[in-house]
């Protein structure tokens, strides 16, 4: 430190403390968002006080009939629709996503790898509403023609489009996982003269397991949270769906449809916020799981 300018030095160090303080403040403000959000949802749903319907009835038994007498606010139809749509999308996207991930990480030559990454990013960047539009003008219209349905909207189409939406996330997480398999393991296996398929199915899949779980969980979390695409494609019917060809109303679509027609602080309002809170908790829970899995993948890579 230059002894001839102690005051400048002290100002400099003080300003550093100020900057540090500002940054910390910014951070804390940001964190409070999350807590504010959770707290507010809880408050609005009055779940703490209880709004007269117990959880089991809410989730499983009651139909959604706010205009009936007496009005009932069960979300069973939404829960089932969500499970069907998310389930279908996972069934379609997980195998394809793993295949793309393995392809990109192991088999693709370098120039091909370099095209795959932007391709997946483009897929991930298309907004939900555009996917809904795309699905509407292609599949819905086609279904009306092929299957002679009065309206082509159904859970099947919503599931297919949702699968395309979650595909890039599953694929890139899977690719990351396969890349993190230690090179020494590959050396040890291939030095024995075995094929890729043999080594993959006997050894590599085990090393990749936590990361692959994380990929599936990520896909599931995204599938549960998507709104506009399923809103435009699933049909918005409050009846409990019995098959994929039925119209349904996943939870996010229910919230989007009903909020506009709800009086503030009414029972329906509270029911909607309770559903929202429920969804929030589930998605956060899945993300905690993913976080834990990702820590495991990091451990593998450094071991």
């Amino acid at each position, binding site marked *: 430190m230059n002894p001839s300018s102690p005051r400048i030095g002290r100002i400099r160090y003080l300003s550093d403390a100020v900057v540090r303080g500002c940054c910390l403040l910014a951070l804390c403000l940001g964190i409070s968002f999350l807590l504010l959000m959770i707290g507010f949802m809880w408050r609005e749903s009055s779940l703490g006080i209880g709004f007269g319907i117990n959880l089991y009835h809410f989730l499983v038994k009651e139909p959604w009939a706010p205009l009936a007498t007496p009005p009932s606010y069960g979300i069973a139809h939404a829960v089932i629709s969500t499970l069907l749509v998310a389930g279908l999308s996972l069934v379609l996207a997980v195998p394809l996503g793993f295949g793309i991930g393995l392809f990109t990480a192991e088999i693709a030559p*370098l120039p091909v790898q370099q095209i795959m990454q932007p391709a997946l990013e483009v897929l991930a960047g298309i907004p939900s509403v555009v996917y809904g539009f795309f699905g509407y003008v292609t599949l819905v219209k086609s279904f009306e023609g092929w299957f002679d349905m009065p309206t082509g909207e159904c859970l099947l189409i919503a599931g297919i489009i949702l699968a395309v939406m979650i595909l890039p996330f599953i694929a890139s997480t899977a690719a990351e996982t396969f890349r993190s398999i230690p090179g*020494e*393991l590959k*050396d040890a296996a291939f*030095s*024995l*003269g075995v*094929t890729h398929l043999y080594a993959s199915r006997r*050894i590599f899949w*085990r090393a990749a397991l936590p990361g692959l779980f994380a990929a599936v969980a990520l896909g599931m979390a995204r599938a549960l949270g998507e709104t506009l695409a399923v809103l435009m494609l699933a049909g918005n019917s409050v009846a409990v769906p019995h098959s994929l060809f039925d119209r349904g109303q996943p939870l996010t679509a229910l919230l989007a449809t009903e909020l506009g027609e709800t009086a503030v602080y009414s029972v329906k309002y509270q029911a909607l916020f309770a559903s929202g809170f429920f969804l929030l908790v589930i998605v956060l829970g899945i993300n905690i799981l993913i976080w834990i899995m990702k820590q495991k993948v990091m451990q593998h890579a450094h071991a």
Partner: protein
Amino acid sequence: MTARTEAIRLPAVPNDAPLPRSRYPLSFDVGFLSVSFHGKITLKDVAAAIPDRQVLAVIGPSGAGKSTFLRVLNRTLEIIPQARVVRGEVHFKGENLYGRGVDARIVRKRIGMVHQKPLAFPLSIRENVLFGVRFHQHWQGRPKDEFTQTYLERAGLWEEVKDRLRQPASALSVGQLQRLCIARALANEPEALLMDEPCSALDPVSTARIEELILGLKEQLPVIIVTHNLAQARRIADRCLFLADGVCLEQGPADRIFTDPASARVRDFVTGKIG
């Protein structure tokens, strides 16, 4: 005269002329081998003549390209992206390893490799040993248990693990793991064995056991071992090949290399003057 000029001055043929004097025929015959890694040449015009049933120690300073040389011999260089054999030929028992239509996987079966860091597959001990065997299916009617026992015995591990063959291999100690890796490699019934610093991660007792193993193995197949440990090379090698900066400076019988090498740099290295 500096070592560098010396290296450039050497002709691109083995130092012994014309062929190594040995009872046994040539196993490996390498000529004009050049390897590039990310576009940079890491091995330049390496030539080697390796007789059968002998131990060849590949020695030299760090980063000289010794592991790369080994990888060329069993065609695992191509696993590394951006690594290529730029020119040269490798013949094993008269057959061109890089010839047209040759499947690298068959080469890897016939020429086994043991790596520096012992790594157990996430399988039982028995399944580790049988990993390559189940693929190549060369048991020729012998039951798999007998197969496992034979090769675990040859690797000197049988007594210690015979009661827990079905347990995960990850529970073994480092020294045991390396012997398991050797058993795994031998179970493929290779015709040559390459070893990349197999003892560098081990304690002296395990090292001694493996050196004993190598001396036993050499009676059946050529063993090529990369080692940093000059004392080890002195103990087990029949021939030596000295690599520095990607170039072969000298090769020949081990006792000659260690007592009276032709190259000054090699002499400095083996007498410990430079590392």
